[in-house]
């Protein structure tokens, strides 16, 4: 088959798998009783509650984004440009909250602040009672979302800083100090990276279900659930996601027209230039202490309280005997999901980077839109599309969970592979083409081997995201197919805290290996470039 034929086929499959469910959902909400009606939407926009939810959702997303950027950018600079000791270790440490389902961080804090919790033992009940009161609500949601999404900003800042042409910084350093250089040269140059990081944090917070639901802070994704579960109303549940959909659409547009149009002085390909590091000198110790304290707050308190609670015999029994099936399923489904995400990324990323079709941007926007959409909505969409006797082999099997992964995370694979291909000069492929090698052979013989590191990284990231997925999996998992994050979330009602803690720690274990592997790849590519 020809290149265009194969790519069209992949695009076609992607649209069926990912976009059709959401489209079905939208259409169904417009035809509540078989006839066209905007009744669901009229009800929605007339309700004052809609505007309260909108305000809640937006204020959480805005504040979490600002706080995360404010903390993440300095950390990113510290970890990539200075001689701060243990900076690799810190990077790894701050990434941990991101690799497990975010509601687990909320659970960790909750346990830490509880009467027997580790924080209560240090600070006393009076302090933690007040903290606990504020924890359930807006401040708690901001705290948890910030600690979970901080690595997005830190790592993107580090990556983009690594791409700045060192000559530009050196030139500035001849006349001014580091602070001025960073402020006037490096940060403006990487502003698209920072902007992208902010956008991701914003979108992920907006779509988050687990944390606001646990902390009883009412936002749109939670409302979609409530409409579903308390009022049995499919149409209203869908309509409730429309304002969110509009906001996400705006994000996609901003990303497309604002971010892509700007050009920057980033080095192309693998420059071999030596990067200059910032000497912290007399500040070293105080900054180190500051980072340690900060890590203690963001990472050690929630994870520490989970780990300390999980050390009990009952918990171990529940964890290892009863939950092993769920663990195994998590591993298998995430592996399959990661493999398919990599495969889609391989082709869609190629499409996007090499601009094979004029409409490549539309596929990219679609994928990004789905990435930002709450998993709960994707789940509802999958139900409305696949739940009928003819497609029961998908709906009643693990396939539907995998479809959810692909719909939600295709953008990750696509963007990561596109970034990988951007590092491979087109002449590499042309050189093969001109010697008479067909497209498929070029992919297998040239593109894939040269993109090897990117492929592995995409697989690992895909695995991490699939293994922590909650939103869509919870909506659609077929009987007997629960994954570990789902099992923990459904067990939470009235379960002993030790068991929940032990399961969270197990989840951490599953995610830790791929994270370390990623760390190695990341470090290698930094050393190399």
């Amino acid at each position, binding site marked *: 088959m020809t290149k265009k034929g194969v790519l069209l086929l992949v695009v076609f499959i992607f649209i069926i798998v990912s976009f059709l469910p959401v489209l079905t959902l939208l259409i169904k909400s417009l035809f509540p009783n078989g006839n066209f009606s905007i009744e669901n939407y009229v009800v929605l926009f007339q309700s004052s509650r809609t505007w309260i939810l909108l305000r809640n959702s937006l204020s959480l997303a805005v504040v979490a984004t600002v706080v995360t950027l404010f903390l993440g950018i300095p950390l990113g600079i510290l970890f990539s440009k200075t001689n701060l000791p243990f900076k690799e270790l810190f990077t790894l440490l701050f990434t941990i909250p991101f690799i497990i389902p975010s509601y687990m961080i909320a659970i960790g804090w909750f346990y830490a602040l509880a009467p027997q919790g580790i924080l209560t033992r240090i600070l006393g009940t009076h302090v933690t009672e007040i903290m606990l009161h504020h924890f359930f609500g807006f401040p708690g949601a901001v705290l948890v979302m910030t600690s979970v999404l901080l690595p997005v900003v830190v790592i993107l800042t580090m990556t983009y800083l690594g791409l700045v042409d060192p000559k530009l910084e050196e030139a500035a350093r001849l006349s001014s100090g580091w602070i001025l250089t960073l402020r006037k040269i490096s940060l403006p140059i990487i502003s698209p990276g920072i902007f992208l990081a902010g956008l991701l944090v914003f979108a992920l917070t907006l779509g988050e279900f687990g944390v606001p*639901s646990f902390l009883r802070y009412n936002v749109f994704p939670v409302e979609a*659930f409530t409409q579903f579960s308390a*009022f*049995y109303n*499919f149409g209203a549940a869908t309509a409730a996601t429309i304002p969110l959909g509009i906001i996400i659409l705006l994000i996609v547009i901003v990303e497309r027209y604002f971010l892509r149009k700007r050009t920057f002085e980033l080095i192309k390909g693998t420059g071999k230039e030596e990067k200059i590091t910032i000497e912290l000198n007399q500040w070293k110790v105080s900054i180190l202490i500051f980072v340690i304290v900060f890590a203690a707050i963001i990472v050690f308190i929630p994870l520490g309280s989970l780990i300390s609670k999980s050390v009990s015999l009952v918990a171990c029994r529940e964890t290892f005997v009863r939950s092993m099936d769920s663990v195994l399923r998590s591993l298998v489904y995430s592996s399959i999901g990661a493999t398919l995400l990599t495969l889609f990324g391989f082709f869609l990323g190629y499409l996007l980077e090499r601009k094979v079709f004029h409409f490549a941007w539309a596929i990219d926007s679609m994928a990004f839109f789905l990435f930002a959409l709450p998993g709960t909505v994707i789940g509802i969409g999958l139900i409305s599309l696949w739940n009928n006797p003819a497609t029961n082999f998908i*709906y009643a099997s693990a396939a539907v969970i995998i479809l959810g992964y692909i719909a939600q995370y295709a953008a990750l694979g696509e963007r990561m592979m596109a970034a990988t291909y951007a590092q491979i000069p087109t002449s590499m492929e042309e050189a093969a083409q001109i010697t008479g090698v067909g497209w498929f052979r070029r992919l297998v013989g040239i593109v894939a081997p040269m993109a090897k590191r990117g492929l592995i990284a995409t697989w690992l990231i895909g695995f991490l995201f699939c293994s922590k997925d909650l939103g869509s999996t919870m909506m659609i*998992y077929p*009987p*007997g197919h629960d994954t570990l994050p789902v099992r923990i979330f459904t067990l939470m009602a009235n379960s002993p805290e030790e068991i929940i803690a032990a399961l969270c720690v197990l989840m951490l274990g599953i995610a830790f290996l791929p994270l370390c592997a990623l760390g190695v790849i990341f470090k290698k590519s930094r050393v190399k470039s």
Partner: protein
Amino acid sequence: MRRVYLFFLSFLLISSSKSYLSWAEEVVVYVSEDQVFSEPILKDFEKETGIKVKPVYDTEEAKSTGVMNRLIAEKDNPQADVYWANEPIRAVVLKQKGISAAYFSPNAKDISAQFKDPEGYWTGFSARARVFIVSAEGAAPTSIHAYTDKKWKNKAVIANPLFGTTTSWIAALFTVWGDEKTKSFLDRIKLNEVKISTSNGESTTFVINKQFAFSLVDSDDATNAVRNGKGVRQIYPDQEAGGLGALILPNAAVLIKGGKNPENARKLMDYLFSPETERKLAFADCAQIPLHPGIQTPKDVKKIEEIRPMKVDYETVAKKLQEIQAYLKDWVGY
């Protein structure tokens, strides 16, 4: 390297699929009762009968994925064989929507007719009651009218009536008292500055922490608080002769129409209605009240014979519950 990876993957695939292949007999059950209590029962059933149970569990009320909604959504393509509801209202909704089928289990014949659908579309077992949780010392209310009593102004809590058992309780009052009396009662609750908490769990915490004097909660919340030595006790309201009685909310099992394993579904339902299951649920942390007469219970779990239940028809309550949604939203101030 690739071979090692492939080997690993196929190993995982085989080992995970093995557990499914070896079960020829299975039954699919959707569960709204807390997983931590229902799972052991289902595991025991699996062990005793050799029938593989494939469950889908609900999460806590307010954050529910709504297995109930999945049942409705899957009406034309049923996946479940049995639905284990944690109160009969949902079972009635399923009956109205034509999702359930009738089944009279021989094991349920000793359960009082009040807790069963006369047409067999649902059958109740192991129940919770709506009870007061109050401080171990000092004065305590004995009737739900305490909520409107000036004496308790600003001292009482109730969970958000938009969710869970509180909704059922208010709907039950509507069916017993009629619209006018109930609405006036609710208005007076508001005037008496009763705090509205997010859940029964939070209400319980408020009373334990002495922030409020009493709250109507579920009997399992109250029993657990008592067992854990939190300095509280539970009181069944309106137990005097001729009184209103306490609202009893049994679990309910429902046979799903068009399920793929009807035989195993009936076996599972028989198992759930057995005295032995009721005994287990009474001794578990959920402390549920057995509906079969004469079943042994722990000391702190009342027998059904010792309770004066509120006389309600659950089908009417379910209908009322759907009617008053808008009113309740308004009342809460949404």
